[in-house]
């Protein structure tokens, strides 16, 4: 049943999506076929799938670890941007330099940037008991404005005709392609490696055990010698760090410069990826591909049948709703009751 709910959620999303878009006057069945099958049947779209799935998987893996610990980090989008910005800062400082150390330095900065943005909700939660859902969510919006400020001011490309964007990264600052002539960059294999390492750590290590036991039973964790406070920090630093990694890989890969359009909501979509992947890093790979299909397919459907761009978001949201609803129905059964049972004390 554990793995049936996500599959059922995806299938139901297709059915409901077809109905909704038919009622809106589109070719609903056609839309679903375009979105869910065209990216798979057309080999030209496979590399699109790969580069869309990579950041989703990297962020989703981090979130799946945090959520296992019952730490509800909703700020992956902000941590993703913070990581990309930290990496960009290194890139802008090394514009005139060359060398193989520059890209690794950017990646390290990216991870640290994501961690730093994740550390704020961790500090507020452990020191002042502030709910991490609220703080991490609000910090998403704060960082976007910091980004806009930097792009319109200190970071603006002097040769860029006043467009709010940085200079293009140099080759030493860009993520190489796997094969010349494709758009497949190194972020894709890195995402798979991240997921495999996370799976191993979560299933075999004391760290993974700590995360799971704190999430499943905080009292038992304390009895077993695991500190909840310590775990909150670890969860937010790991998920923030991985979101930051995804951010720097994205900016040094497909973007190759920082632009105002960089935040595309991967950090939010990755929440769906984490849940659809059952908070299991291997499941997150599959879920990342499914969500990438909706992105790529959504673009296909825009051109072929004129579906609005919001359609992608609608499909993604339905998937999460149906999955959460499905999980409830797996655990509980609906039962018709008469209203007059208010006095039961059993």
């Amino acid at each position, binding site marked *: 049943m554990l793995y049936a709910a996500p599959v059922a959620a995806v299938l139901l999303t297709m059915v409901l999506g077809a109905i909704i878009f038919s009622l809106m006057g589109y070719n609903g069945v056609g839309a679903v076929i375009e979105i869910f099958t065209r990216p798979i049947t057309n080999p030209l779209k496979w590399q699109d799938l790969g580069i869309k799935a990579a950041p989703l998987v990297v962020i989703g893996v981090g979130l799946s670890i945090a959520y296992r610990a019952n730490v509800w980090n909703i700020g992956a989008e902000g941590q993703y941007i913070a990581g990309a910005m930290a990496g960009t800062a290194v890139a802008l400082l090394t514009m005139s330099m060359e060398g193989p150390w520059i890209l690794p330095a950017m990646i390290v900065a990216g991870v640290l940037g994501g961690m730093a943005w994740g550390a704020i909700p961790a500090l507020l939660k452990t020191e002042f008991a502030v709910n991490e859902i609220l703080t991490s969510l609000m910090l998403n919006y704060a960082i976007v404005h910091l980004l806009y400020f930097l792009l319109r001011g200190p970071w603006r490309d002097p040769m860029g005709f006043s467009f709010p964007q940085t200079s293009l990264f140099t080759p030493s600052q860009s993520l190489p392609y796997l094969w010349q002539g494709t758009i497949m960059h190194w972020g894709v294999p890195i995402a798979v490696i991240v997921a495999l390492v996370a799976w191993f750590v979560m299933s*075999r*290590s*004391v*760290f993974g*055990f700590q995360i*799971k*036991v704190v999430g*499943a*039973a905080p*009292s*038992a964790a*304390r*009895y*077993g*010698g695991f*500190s909840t406070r310590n775990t909150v920090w670890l969860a937010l630093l790991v998920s923030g760090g991985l979101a930051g990694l995804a951010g720097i890989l994205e900016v040094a890969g497909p973007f190759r410069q920082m632009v105002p359009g960089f935040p595309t909501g991967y950090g939010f979509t990755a929440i769906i990826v984490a849940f659809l992947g059952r908070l299991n890093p291997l499941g997150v790979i599959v879920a990342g591909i499914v969500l990438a299909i909706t992105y790529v397919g959504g673009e296909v459907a825009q051109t072929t049948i004129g579906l609005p761009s919001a359609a992608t978001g609608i499909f993604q949201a339905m998937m999460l709703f149906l999955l959460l609803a499905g999980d409830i129905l797996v655990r509980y059964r609906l039962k018709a009751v008469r209203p007059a*049972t208010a*006095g*039961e*004390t*059993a």
Partner: protein
Amino acid sequence: MDANLPLRLELTGITKQFPGVLANDHVSFSVRPGEIHALLGENGAGKSTLVKMIYGIMQPDAGEIRWDGQPVSIPNPKSARKLGIGMVFQHFSLFEALTVLENIALGMDAKIPSRLLEAKIREVMNQYGLKLDPHRVVSTLSVGERQRIEIVRALLLTPKLLIMDEPTSVLTPQEVDQLFIVLRKLAAEGCSILYISHKLHEIKALCDTATILRAGKVVDTCDPGIETSRSMAEKMIGGNLKDIVKQGGRSLGEPAFTISHLSLPAAGPFGTDLEDISFSVRKGEVFGIAGVAGNGQNELLLALDGEVASAPGAIAMDGHPVGQLHTSARRKRGLCAVPEERNGHAAVGDFTLSENTVLTARNRLGMVSAGLIKAGAARTFTGEVIAAFAVKALGPGATAGSLSGGNLQKYIMGREILQKPTVLVVNQPTWGVDAGAAAAIHQALVDLAASGSAIVVISQDLDELLSLCDTLAVINEGRLSARMNVGEVSVEEIGLLMGGVHGTPEETHIAPGGEHAVPA
């Protein structure tokens, strides 16, 4: 009792199947009007299932329930109450922040104006000598008083059958006597009582008939007045009961675990402050802490095992202060502990037994190297615990939540005892555990003490403490009494200390010639 009256309750061939378990297998017995009928059996024998079917929480797959001679079906608790069946559950369903009156009003099927309800409550309380102020807030009440709310709640419906599930497990001996007076009075008025308990001497003292269940079947219906506690226990477990074997000539060594002036404020509004607790346990000694639930036992366990830090010098092991050390550091020094709550505290229900072994035994038994868990070592040790403590489980890969309460307790006790701790602190080691398993746990504790470990047993079960411990003290409202040698102290004395300031003078009055004898 008039033999011509129809039977109050008659069960014929009641069968209930759960996936993989036949919980009740053609159970038949009957209860006469005014009879106090005991339902006895080990954990998992099917008592709860049976009672749930009588109270309408579950439906039997087969069989017939007759009520006053008429076949009935009881689809839900509400219709059970309509028939006149009342039930007092082992775990109370009370809102701590509300008053007695508000709690009772919430539980009523019919809405009654509160003044009328209060008058009715006072009437019932006067009739049965139950002392309770309807306007007290529940959080300020002792467990015995809380149970009285549940009893009053059931009595307000003037039941013809009252089901009591393990009612005395949380009461002082004096409160037990008080409860028995109420139950006898009820029975004399014609109300039948179905009394579920594993305390055999209470059943002997109170009940007219006992039906013994084993593995879902009725194995015997007997007169507890004629049977001995031992014979009933052996019928329950279907074998011979082992006595605790204490090796003679045991000498107690140096103090291994010393608590001096331990004070801790309560963690929450319904917690208990610990005030100036001092005691010392020698090597080889079993030290008992008696007391009614909610007097600081849980807080004390958390302080002793390191889940809550205290002043550095307040707790010492072999002379080293450990008050500031957390649980893992104390475990490394040799202190193991078993908290009262099995699910979610001593074990994680969703985890396998192997994983639950990793929870507490990973460092003492070398189950971790380079940050990775040695799953094989955990599995082997878990297998040893399962074998040594006869845990009924599918194996180390079974989830803790799939075990019955008693089996899980055996596993948890085994997990800690087989780590060979130098100090072991246990809270309620045999709570909800059947007689056979309890005897095994007691023997393991005594053997561990014989090998030189210092053991602290916190329990509400006085019989357990008296048979197990060398010395004991009583905890009341977060304060610990002076230590007493078992064998030099009477149950009445302990009971008075347990009652502390909760009891009124009438309640703590010692009945001459009480039925409690102190085993020497």
